[in-house]
């Protein structure tokens, strides 16, 4: 399934490319693992006992791997206060999958301190990023 992967030599068109003021990391390699994800290299975010997301440039070595690099928009934001305006999820219990902006699905992880990374379906990425920029304005940022 090479058609699932972004080709080399072609510019990566991030879903967030038209939003200013967002820390876009959508280009990061994102791989969905089905089945056991124990012992995999890279940053492994466990979603369920037989589902995980691996973030990294190299395709993980597992029997069932799906390239979700282009499927998920990813960006980082600073501040618990902003996160609390985005989601009801418990910020002390991350990473977690849940709803942001009253109903948009997202995977949220803490990148240390008050820095958070959000993964959202790329087709909703522009909308989410725009809204997050607007919410940050409400906090005077």
């Amino acid at each position, binding site marked *: 399934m090479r058609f699932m992967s972004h080709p080399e030599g072609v510019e990566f068109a991030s879903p967030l490319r038209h939003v200013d003021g967002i820390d876009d990391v959508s280009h990061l390699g994102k791989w969905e693992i089905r089945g056991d994800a124990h012992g995999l290299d890279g940053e492994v975010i466990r979603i369920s006992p037989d589902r995980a997301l691996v973030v990294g440039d190299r395709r993980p070595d597992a029997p069932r791997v799906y390239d979700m*690099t282009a499927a998920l928009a990813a960006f980082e934001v600073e501040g618990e206060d902003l996160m609390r305006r985005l989601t009801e999820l418990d910020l002390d219990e991350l990473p977690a999958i849940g709803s942001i902006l009253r*109903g948009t699905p997202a995977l949220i992880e803490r990148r240390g301190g008050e820095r958070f990374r959000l993964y959202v379906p790329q087709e909703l990425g522009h909308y989410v990023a725009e809204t997050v920029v*607007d919410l940050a304005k409400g906090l005077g940022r």
Partner: protein
Amino acid sequence: MRIAPQPGERIDRRKPFTFEYDGAKITGFEGDTIGSALYAAGRRVFSRSFKYHRPRGLLCCSGDCPNCMMTVDGVPNVRLCVEPVRDGAVVRAQNVLGSLDRDLLSITDKIGGPFTPVGFYYRTMIRPRRLWPLYEKFLRNVAGLGKIGENGTHRRYDTEHRRVDVLVIGGGRAGREAAARAEGDVLLVDEHGGGGALKGRALGIYEGGLVPVDAGDVLYRFRAERIVVATGGIEQPLVFPGNDLVGVMLPNGVRRLTRDWSIKPGERAVVVTADDAGLEAAGDLRAVGTEVARVVDLRSERIVQLAAVGKRGRLSAVLVDGEAVDCDVLVMSGGRQPAYSLLAQAGARVEYEPRRGIFVPTELPENVEAVGSAAGDLEGAAVPAASYDGGDGKCFVCICEDVTEKDVKRALAEGFDSIELAKRYTTATMGPCQGRLCHLQSIRMLARETETDEAAIGTTTARPPWGPVELGLLAGRHYEAMKRSPLHFRHEEAGATMMWTGAWRRPFAYGDPAAEVRAVHESLGVIDVSTLGKIIVEGPDAAELLERLYPNRFADLAVGRIRYGVLTTDGGRIMDDGTVARLGDDLFYVTTTSTGSESVCEWFEWWNAVWGYDAEIVNVTGALAAVNLAGPQAREALGALTDADVSNDALKYLDAKEITVAGVPCLALRIGFVGELGYELHCAASAGEHLWDALVARGAVPFGLEPQRVLRLEKAHVIVGQDTDSESNLLSAGMPWIVKEKPDFVGKWAVELVEERGIRERLVGFTMDGGLLPPEGAQVVENGKSTGRVTSSRVSEQVGKVIGLAWVRPERADDGTRLSIRIAGADHPATVTLAPFYDAEGAKLRS
């Protein structure tokens, strides 16, 4: 009437603020509220009452009552007694015709009484029915509160979610002590803020310790492990004729005016009190030089007569047991009632205590604690009478809604004798104070009139919100989740007219839809179909899973081949449709309708789990961009952009193949939703623009949804959800060939039942004999009666006719049957056409 600085005053006289009231500049100091500054400037009338337009003045100075509500900077119903002064604020009276002091609508107070008894609008204004909109408009204008959007202000509202271990509601002594005592992450909320408390009003307590707090521009949604309610006690008014006159106050009103704001409330006062609060108010009045002419302590003195007399709505004297005392201030205190509302919402029981004459919360839920006055920790007060006699003035039980003692009696006489019914009929307790100043009074009066007791009457159900809240705050920010295709910005750049399809924004057309149709028929078009649902089904049981999900056969589908499939529900109804491509022995690529991807994915996962198959179901809708390259020149254009062999032998109709196009690996599906030679190319979303640009550069004309709808209708291709509905089945939709003989598939039994019973209607194609275009939804008529409906219709230049799809009776579904279709009241002839209107044999698709 500001007096010399008082010890402990809450104002800073060095910091003046100026605002505008009715065109006049009013100055207050830091620590003042708009209400106190207006009072200091001599204003006594602050509002006109809801129904009778009676003048009303400051009463509680605590934000409990409706008396000081005005419109501030376009925001209606702002309680001025708790709204801090600020420079430049524009304050206007509301619900008046004329001015506060001369409100022309106050005529309702003089003559309205006999004509506007309780519930009059339920009875007198219902006939004739067609006049109700007029009546309603009239009533809305003469009764009520402020009007929204007067200045067209668009305020920003935000919502913030917070988690705490302990949430303490109420920043009085008990609340502050509880907060200091509590362990963990503790937060104190208070309506007036201060002392480290978050300024905001708790609106309710919901399941799971959820407490929404109204903080003006931000709605905080707290999740608390433990909730401490310290909402205190609410000073209760007494019920007697004239108890709403300007000058009648509760003790706290006097306390704040005199102590916090150094204002002398009046010249001569009378105090009637059931507790110490009234006596303290008497002391406060004396301290600022107001003469206290008479103090009635109901704990030691029994009175039977009490009435306030006024001139033009303002207090001039008080009658106590036959004795008239001239005064301009009357302090009334009926004791304090625990503010138990939030506790009751949380599930506490409320019990009447006859000795103290108050309702006290008991049996609190585990995660909720009550402290201080809210818990019933109140010193003894006399229990006042349900009402006092003595004059012929109106005797108000509920000042928010202008409900008098007479109204309650009348409601009772009409049979509304339970508190819940009386509440709804009289609307007592349903106004802005939400029962703070009238709940206990209503219960007491019902108890007296029905000769029972307060315990037997009981309380009404406490519900959120506990106090008025702006709808904008509850609504929060306006979110409109918009799904954008990876090619979205290309469409915008090309000037496409965009339209909503579900949550997706898609191009309707880029210019002239007819020209785009022509391009596809004559040369080459390209349409963005990234919105199609896309699902990978992989695993040893993948083929069997699909075989059992679809009425079609998939187990025998060869690798590299595609088949159109329709999903049926358990009831045999059409659920979704799309194509299934077999990419490997254990690997399938399924497409669904644009709005169906999530529900189809869930459907697959559900049955996969039920049957216990080993198959992965991966929704890759967003992962991939997809375009349909269609037209007689499609092969030539594709061939120029790829090294792969795309000849008709190497890539046949209904073949699926991975090829690289313009440097982008694509899954090429040779299928045709439109009637020309075509290829669907699916690639990584992030490379979609690159592929699109290459195709457009090769001369492909972008076409939108509207031209696509014409093109697919020429092929009589059905759109699930437009031409079918939740009742349609495969047989009635004219797709019996989908259903294969096999042991099982979802909906098999139901489809067989339909086969046995026969169908009641049938989806057919039709052409209009004339050139008139029936609207979608037009009726198919027989002998003047509707027997069917049009679901799709378009003018097709290619066919040279108006074509469409319609549901008709099975008896009228044979090829060539004449139909009548009603357009704008007249019936027009049409002919049933079962074969596709264009290229019926599909030669173009296979060419």
